[in-house]
């Protein structure tokens, strides 16, 4: 744990631990209520039974939902590692080539002229433009992956706060249901905590999905910056005639004297 995503790791581990505590608390609540019902007047006992069922429904819904979500929670660290690989192993290569393969840095620059040299220069410039375009896409891709990593991390921190709140309420409820008189209030308070949990989930989910939609739009935008097939421009200009013995009896390359 630690590093830039230490808070994510802590959030996940606190949710996993809270899931266990809340399950134990729910079992205790059921035991306490079943025991307490014997001592409550029929009317009150019936109400407690119903509200305990409602709490059970809300709690199990929350428990199952977050448990399923944890299975494919995402990994900010993996997303950042991929962004770093795009940067250091792809973008860096493209940047280096943009510099090395610029016409101004070609050893032949200023040594040759002629039709082929002019055609060659247009090919070099065309390749450099494609490299420049690719560089821009790779910079954006890397920053988008890091932005998604931030969103995943923030979302799970919010989830941890929300679920720890529900877990805390379940633990308090389990303790409060030991006292027969406090059972109805304890159950009602825990039901209120479940409602607060779902409210927090809705708020965090809206923020998260807005961010995901915006980052998806960025990725889509980067894809449409190239043509759909992702085709690299191939050199089409004719610059290969250095011979005077071929059909045209003339080299298109002329050395500058």
């Amino acid at each position, binding site marked *: 744990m630690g590093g830039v995503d230490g808070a994510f790791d802590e959030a996940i581990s606190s949710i996993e631990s809270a899931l266990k505590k809340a399950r134990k608390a729910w079992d205790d609540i059921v035991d306490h209520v079943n025991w307490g019902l014997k001592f409550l007047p029929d009317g009150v006992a019936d109400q407690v039974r119903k509200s305990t069922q409602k709490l059970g429904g809300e709690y199990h819904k929350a428990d199952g939902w977050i448990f399923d979500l944890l299975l494919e929670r995402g990994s900010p660290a993996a997303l950042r590692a991929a962004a770093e690989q795009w940067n250091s192993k792809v973008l860096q290569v493209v940047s280096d080539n943009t510099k090395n393969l610029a016409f101004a840095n070609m*050893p032949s620059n200023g040594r040759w002229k002629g039709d082929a040299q002019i055609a060659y220069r247009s090919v070099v410039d065309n390749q450099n433009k494609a490299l420049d375009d690719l560089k821009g896409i790779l910079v954006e891709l890397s920053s988008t992956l890091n932005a998604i990593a931030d969103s995943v991390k923030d979302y799970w921190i919010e989830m941890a706060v929300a679920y720890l709140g529900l877990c805390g309420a379940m633990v308090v409820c389990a303790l409060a249901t030991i006292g027969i008189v406090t059972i109805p209030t304890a159950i009602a308070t825990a039901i209120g905590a479940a409602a607060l949990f779902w409210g927090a989930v809705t708020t965090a989910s809206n923020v998260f999905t807005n961010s995901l939609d915006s980052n*998806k739009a960025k990725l889509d935008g980067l894809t449409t910056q190239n043509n759909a097939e992702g085709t690299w421009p191939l050199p089409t200009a004719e610059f290969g005639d250095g011979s005077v013995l071929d059909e045209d009896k003339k080299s298109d390359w002329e050395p500058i004297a």
Partner: protein
Amino acid sequence: MTSFEAQCVELAKDADKWTAGADLMNGAAHTAEGLGMSAEQFGAIADEHGVVSAYVTLQRQLTNLLTGATTAFGTIGNTVALVAQTYLEEDLAGEHAMRRIGDRD
């Protein structure tokens, strides 16, 4: 080494740069190909919102572009190397000089 020979050597150095560039792009293409990710990395919610599919499409496209660049750079390097070699061979054989004399007539 004559001036012409030196100029051919400079042209051959261009070819070497393109070949080296192609090798680098080939390595980058392999890296890009290996950077596939799924819901495991992005999370189930991101997957539901199409983020995984958008990334995979872009990743494949970038891999294709890098592979295409490898081919293009290799072709340019080979062409320039052939020009330099042809020019040098014909120059050593005196063909270019003779042609230039002929051009003056």
